[in-house]
C-alpha cells in the first residue's frame, strides 16, 4: 500500500464523519474536467469527441474552485482532456493545494517536462502526478495510438521524481491484455520509483474509436486474478486493496456512482464519470434529483452491466472498509501483508 499516512488519515476521518452524520450519499473524489481538449486520441477513450468550438473552451479557475467547494470531497482528480493543456493549470493546482485537497493530476505526460521546466508546480504531499501508462512500450503506444509516447512518459516520470514530486501511474486494461506482460510492467514502474500504481478495466464508451476490446465482467475477473495472483511485495498500488480484490472476483460489490462526481463545461454529470445521461446545475441537484436506482449492476441497466471501473467501485471498497469491522479487518490485513 502506498497511500501516504496523512492522506489515509484525511480520507478515513472524512468518511467516518460522513457516516456519523448519517449522510447516505457523499463524494470521495471530485473528477474535475476543466477541458475536453487532448493531444492524443486513444483507442479506448470516449471523452474527447466534441466539435472544435467546445474543444477550444475550458472552465475558469473560479468555476473549478466553486465546484470543489460545493462538492466538498477531500480529493480532487483532474482528468480531461489533457489537463496540462489547460492554460491555468498551475494556478488551479496551487489553489487546491492551498486548500489542502489531495490532487491527482492525470496526464499523459507529453507536456510534463515542459511544464516542470516552466516552474508551474511545486512539490507537495497534496499533489501527485498520475501518469497514464497502459503497459510496457508496445502496449502503451498502441493504446494511445502513437509511437514514442511511452518513452516520453518514462522520461517525464524520472524528471518529476528527481524534482521531488509524488508520481503515481494509472493503467486502463482492455480485452487481450497479457497478465504476464502486466506483471513485468508493474516491476518496471517500481524500478522507475513511482509511489504507487492504479489499475482499472476500461469502460465500454459508446463513443470510443475501438469498440472491440472492452472487457466483459467475467473476463476481467480472470485477467485480474491471473495478473495479481501472488503479488510481489515490492508492488505498491495507490488504491484500496479491497477494490483490487473486487477486480479479482473476491467481492460482489454494487456501484457507488455518486462517489466520484464529475464536473465539466456542461455542469454536474449524471450519473457518473462514465455515463452522460444529463447534467445538473448544482451538486445538490445532482445528488437529490438523479434517479440512482436506474444505475449499477443490480439495476439491470445494460450500460452498467460490465462496468467495474474504479470511479464507481473504489468508493464502494472504501465504504466496505469503514462500514464494518470485518471490512476494516480485511483492509488492514491486505494492507499490512500485501496479500490480495
Amino acid at each position, binding site marked *: 500500500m502506498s497511500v501516504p499516512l496523512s492522506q489515509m488519515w484525511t480520507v478515513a476521518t472524512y468518511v467516518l464523519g460522513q457516516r456519523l452524520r448519517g449522510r447516505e450519499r457523499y463524494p470521495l473524489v471530485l473528477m474535475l474536467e476543466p477541458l475536453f481538449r487532448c493531444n492524443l*486520441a486513444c*483507442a479506448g477513450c*470516449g471523452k474527447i*469527441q*466534441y*466539435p472544435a*468550438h*467546445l474543444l477550444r*473552451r475550458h472552465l475558469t479557475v473560479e468555476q473549478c474552485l466553486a465546484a470543489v467547494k460545493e462538492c466538498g470531497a477531500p480529493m480532487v482528480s483532474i482528468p480531461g482532456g489533457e489537463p496540462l493543456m489547460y492554460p491555468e493549470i498551475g494556478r488551479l493546482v496551487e489553489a487546491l493545494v492551498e486548500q489542502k485537497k489531495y490532487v491527482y493530476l492525470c496526464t499523459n505526460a507529453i507536456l510534463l517536462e515542459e511544464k516542470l521546466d516552466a516552474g508551474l508546480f511545486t512539490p507537495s504531499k497534496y499533489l501527485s502526478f498520475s501518469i497514464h501508462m497502459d503497459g510496457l512500450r508496445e502496449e502503451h503506444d*498502441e493504446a494511445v*495510438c*502513437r509511437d514514442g509516447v511511452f518513452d516520453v512518459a518514462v522520461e517525464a516520470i524520472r524528471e518529476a521524481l528527481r524534482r521531488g514530486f509524488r508520481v503515481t501511474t494509472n493503467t486502463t486494461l482492455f480485452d487481450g491484455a497479457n497478465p504476464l506482460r502486466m506483471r513485468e510492467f508493474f516491476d518496471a514502474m517500481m524500478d522507475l520509483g513511482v509511489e504507487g500504481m492504479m489499475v482499472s478495466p476500461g469502460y*465500454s464508451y*459508446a*463513443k*470510443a*474509436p*475501438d*469498440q472491440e476490446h*472492452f472487457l466483459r465482467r467475467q473476463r476481467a475477473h480472470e485477467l485480474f486474478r491471473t495478473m495479481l495472483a501472488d503479488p510481489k511485495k515490492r508492488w505498491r498500488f495507490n488504491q484500496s486493496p479491497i477494490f483490487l480484490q473486487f477486480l479479482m472476483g473476491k467481492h460482489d460489490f454494487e456501484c457507488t456512482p455518486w462517489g466520484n462526481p464529475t464536473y465539466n*463545461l*456542461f*455542469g454536474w454529470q449524471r450519473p457518473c464519470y462514465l455515463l452522460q445521461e*444529463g*447534467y445538473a446545475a448544482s451538486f445538490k441537484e445532482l445528488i437529490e434529483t438523479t*434517479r440512482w436506482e436506474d444505475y449499477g449492476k443490480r439495476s439491470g441497466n445494460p450500460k452498467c452491466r460490465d462496468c467495474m471501473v474504479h470511479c464507481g467501485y473504489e468508493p464502494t471498497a472504501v465504504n466496505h472498509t469503514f462500514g464494518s469491522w470485518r471490512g476494516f479487518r480485511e483492509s488492514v490485513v491486505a494492507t499490512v501483508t500485501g496479500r490480495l
Partner: protein
Amino acid sequence: MAEEESLEGWAPVIGVEATLDEVVDRAFDYRGDVTLVTARGDELVGYLYNRDRHVAQPFLQMFDADGASHTFRYSEISAIRFTGRDTAAAKSYEAWLRRKAEAGSRPDA
C-alpha cells in the same frame, strides 16, 4: 458494444420519422453540432449538451459556437437537424492500425 451508424445529415420530420422525445435524445447523444428550428422559425446551430424531459416543462440546453448557453422548452421546438460533423465517427483507431500495418509491410520498417 457496436456503434450504430452515424446520424450525420439526418433531418427527421418530428412526429413522422420519430417523436420529439426520440429526436432530442438522439441529438443529446450526438457528438456533433445540430441545427435547432423553433416554432417561430428561428434557427440556432450548436451543441446540444443537456436535456430533461422528467420535469414539468421539459427543456434542452445548447452551446452555440461562441460559447453562449441557450435553453429551449420542448414545446418551442419545431425541428432538429444533425448538421455538424459527427466527431465520434472518426476512425482514429482504425487509422492507427492501418498505419502500423503499412509500416510493417515496408521493407525498411
